[in-house]
């Protein structure tokens, strides 16, 4: 069973430029495991304050993490937009998935603003193409959505100890919690386990990239 691979490893992502692609693939190397953690004692701010975060509090590592998150959010936002446009859902399922699509779009703009607020350059949206038939059925749409969500949750949790800024951490946590909600609902809709563990798992950037790399053409 290849169900643990998004689209069974078929190509999905295509970057506008070779430089964007290289940037994405290099992310893992840019954020070392030894990154200093200095958020201790920082009072977390509301997510809406994200764009107001002081540039001085940003670090190179945080910017790389934000651009990594942005790439994943771009992928999720695009996926749901195309999936909903295909019109394969109805009733309660449509009601449950529509806000998810809105959330991912909001995450894209929030993370983009955060990258700018920290003095960085947001990565551009990758060109994304999906295997034929990806949105032909509710099963295909929801199954891959469920995998994206679990991957996204673990990707965020994998960065918790590497984020320096309390502001970035607060915003990332506020997003990650919403991704957890999505993951649980998608698991329920696809008849898999909404509570796979009592504590969210983590994946390092390397591990997430290993998952996503085969999808990048």
């Amino acid at each position, binding site marked *: 069973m290849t169900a643990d691979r998004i689209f069974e490893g078929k190509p999905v992502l295509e970057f506008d430029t070779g430089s964007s692609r290289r940037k994405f693939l290099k992310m893992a190397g840019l954020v070392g495991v030894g990154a200093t953690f200095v958020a201790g004692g*920082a009072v977390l701010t509301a997510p809406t304050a994200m764009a107001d975060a002081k540039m001085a509090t940003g670090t190179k590592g945080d910017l790389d993490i934000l651009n990594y998150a942005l790439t994943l959010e771009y992928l999720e936002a695009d996926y749901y937009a195309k999936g909903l446009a295909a019109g394969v859902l109805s009733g309660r399922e449509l*009601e449950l998935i529509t806000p998810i699509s809105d*959330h991912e779009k909001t995450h894209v703009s929030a993370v983009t603003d955060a990258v700018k607020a920290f003095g960085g350059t947001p990565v551009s949206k990758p060109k994304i193409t999906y295997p034929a038939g990806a949105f032909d059925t509710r099963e295909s749409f929801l199954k891959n959505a469920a995998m994206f969500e679990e991957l996204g949750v673990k990707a965020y949790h994998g960065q918790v100890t590497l984020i320096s800024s309390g502001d970035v951490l607060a915003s990332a*946590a506020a997003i990650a919690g919403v991704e957890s909600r999505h993951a649980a609902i998608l698991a329920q809709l696809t008849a898999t386990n909404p*509570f796979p563990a009592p*504590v969210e798992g983590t994946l390092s950037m390397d591990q997430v990239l290993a998952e996503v790399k085969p999808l990048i053409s």
Partner: protein
Amino acid sequence: MANARDLIHGNLSEVPAPMALSALNNRWGLATAVDFGSDLDVLNYALTLEYLEAAFYQQGNSANLLSGDEKRYLATIQKDEETHVAALTDTIKKLGGKPVAAPGVDFGTSFDNRDNYLKTSHTFENVGVGAYLGAAGFIKDKAILQAAAGIFGVEARHAALVGNLLDLPAEGGVYMGAFEKPVAKDKVLAQVAPFLTQMKGSWPTGGVNTGGGSTASSQGADNTGLLVGGAALVGAAGAAALMARRRASDGADS
């Protein structure tokens, strides 16, 4: 709990909630008005909330109000909360702190029927999500932060799923917007105060059942906490693997 009387002060559950809370908060680790002075303070705050949740599901699931998938989902949620209690308790001990005792609880009419049960559950889970996010900024140790974040995410899963079981509106019922919102400690306490009663002896159900009958040996192996081997970072992945194993060991009853 209704007969939890103190001959001098009468039934504490009849005392206005804020007063009852201020009378009891030294014991329950809810003492400071605004803030957390240390990671241990945050952990004991979290432990109190997890004790509440674990007791809630123990009583609720015992009431046999659910069936089918709902029953299985809520059984897993109970185990998650019990695991959180055990992990927080062990972590507090490893850090040299003193875990707060389980609070006395009274969930009123929550278990009169399925809807009441799930509605109260939905409230608890969303309060828990906000509480963890509101406290996270006070955590200094990154291993503890990792674990707290990992618990926070699972509470968000619980909240969403129970909201969906209740067929609540997707936005504002299942999801609470594109960002989770932190809730300050005083607001969290105001929300849970109605369920706290005077402490009466030990934990109502005679101890937190973490399942599998392996608790004692696991603790002996020093691997049940958020931290393993003293200050070493375990990370949520390791903890999750451990806890999943623990849960799998009593999966036969679900």
